[in-house]
């Protein structure tokens, strides 16, 4: 195990933390979901605007550590324009790659909080698309 954590607060992370992308709320989101990292208290809400099987817009709100908030900001950037189906198959590893800083297991939980919110939301979307003509 290494303690080379020095690079985790690189400019990219601090940029997203200090000037987050799409922090705030959508006027009428297709879906929204909140979670907390019960260990450190990070809070996060994600709101998606979905149309044509694609995420059109993504906003987040929350508070907590730089890693969880920066990751949420990057995630919003990442998901916009992507197909729901593609995102449903997105592995956790990809989220960590987007973050691109060396996170210890406990800080990975922060980095993956937004991702977890996204996944929970996408899985619970399962039913509506499966029964389109109600």
């Amino acid at each position, binding site marked *: 195990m290494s303690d080379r954590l020095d690079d985790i607060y690189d400019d990219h992370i601090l940029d997203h933390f200090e000037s987050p992308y799409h922090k705030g709320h959508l006027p009428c989101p297709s879906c929204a979901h909140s979670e907390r990292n*019960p260990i450190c208290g990070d809070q996060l809400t994600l709101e998606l605007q979905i149309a044509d099987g694609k995420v059109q817009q993504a906003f987040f709100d929350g508070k907590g550590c730089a890693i969880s908030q920066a990751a949420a900001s990057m995630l919003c950037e990442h998901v916009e324009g992507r197909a729901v189906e593609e995102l449903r198959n997105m592995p956790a590893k990809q989220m960590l790659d987007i973050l691109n800083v060396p996170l210890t*297991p*406990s800080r990975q939980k922060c980095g993956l909080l937004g991702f977890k919110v996204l*996944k929970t939301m996408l899985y619970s979307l399962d039913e509506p698309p499966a029964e389109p003509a109600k």
Partner: protein
Amino acid sequence: MSATVRDVPITAAAIRGEFPLLTNTAGGDRPLIYLDTGATAQKPQAVIDKITECYEHFNANVHRGVHPLHERITAELEASRKKIAAFLNTRPLDELDLLDDVSEIIFTSGTTMGINLVAQSWGRQFLKPGDEILLNPLEHHANIVPWQMIAAATGAKIVWCPLTADGRFDLDQFDKLLSRRTKMVAVTAMSNVLGTLPPVGEIVRRAHAVGAKVLIDAAQSAPHAPIDVQAWDADFAVFSGHKLYGPTGIGVLYGKLELLDEMGPFLGGGNMIDEVFDDHSTYKRPPFKFEAGTLPIAEAIALGTAIDCVQAWGWDVIHRQEQALLEACHERLEVIPGVTIYGPSVAHKGAIVSFTVEGIPAHDLGTSLAQRGIAVRASHHCAKPLHKCLGVDATTRASFAAYNTLAEVDALAEAIVNTQQMFFRRRG
């Protein structure tokens, strides 16, 4: 290190060599003959070393910090949890559960705690007056008293399923007693007195057919045979670390995730909460919901090492040696006049032999065997209802592990005969 993969199967003698206490001479100059594994197992060097390593190299509290020390201890603990899950053959979890760190493996302080947890958390929620909890006389007090307590609290009723004349689980009687009122069947996978091996999978199948849940007490069976919660389809299963060559102070509760998710918490405290309000709190998902407070951390980690050891030895070698010891013990003891062995024949039991010797109280026999260097247990073995069935107050129990030798069985038989000679020396 004991826990590496071997090409050639290990021998029972090599297993014995891993246990420092068995090569020490305890309490004098006689070698120790330890025939009390049923009470607690001896510990292999690897387990003892792991505890030392925890405290000397990465001691910290878990799930709470971000220092490499914190990361390391948490990783070790969670690795042990995964080992235990594999050891019990739990089913794979889905992606979201994994992201939530959900697990069906709950660390407890032991079997007793695990059963009390289920009795209280599941019982208070799901038992109503008139519901039945089905027990049988093979059960250890740990699998009786918690059910009596929750029955008294909820109005549920304890129903006893009698044994066969030779001390086996009676499936016919079981069928007769099972009904829609049966809500819980709590059954041991191996009697700690008779060695009886109830047909766990079949019991679960029949209990599920009437909608009952089943808790398997694997405390006594765990060191002797695999636990396969999927094959058994068990709802709950419990065991203790200290009987599985691991440390004291640690045990495991397995529960099906959907049941654990439904149940309320047992102990309240740190790490199990999601949010704390003035007058109530909300809770995390399993396992954390049931792991209030600081865990037995070093103990949980070293239990993982104990499981490594068992898997390195292999069930085959363990079983073969224990079976040889069991057969030899029956053969040697059955020919001693005045000795009565209780329970089923060798074909239907694990490596435990409980017996009485006519005219010699169990406690005195125990002392006399101790004088001869042999550690057994002489008592009701926390199974009073069973001893009532057997019609004796106490028995003397020899319980074996793969580290025991045939010479030790011989020594036991000889010591019994010597005790008879000593006790009856003034008779004709």
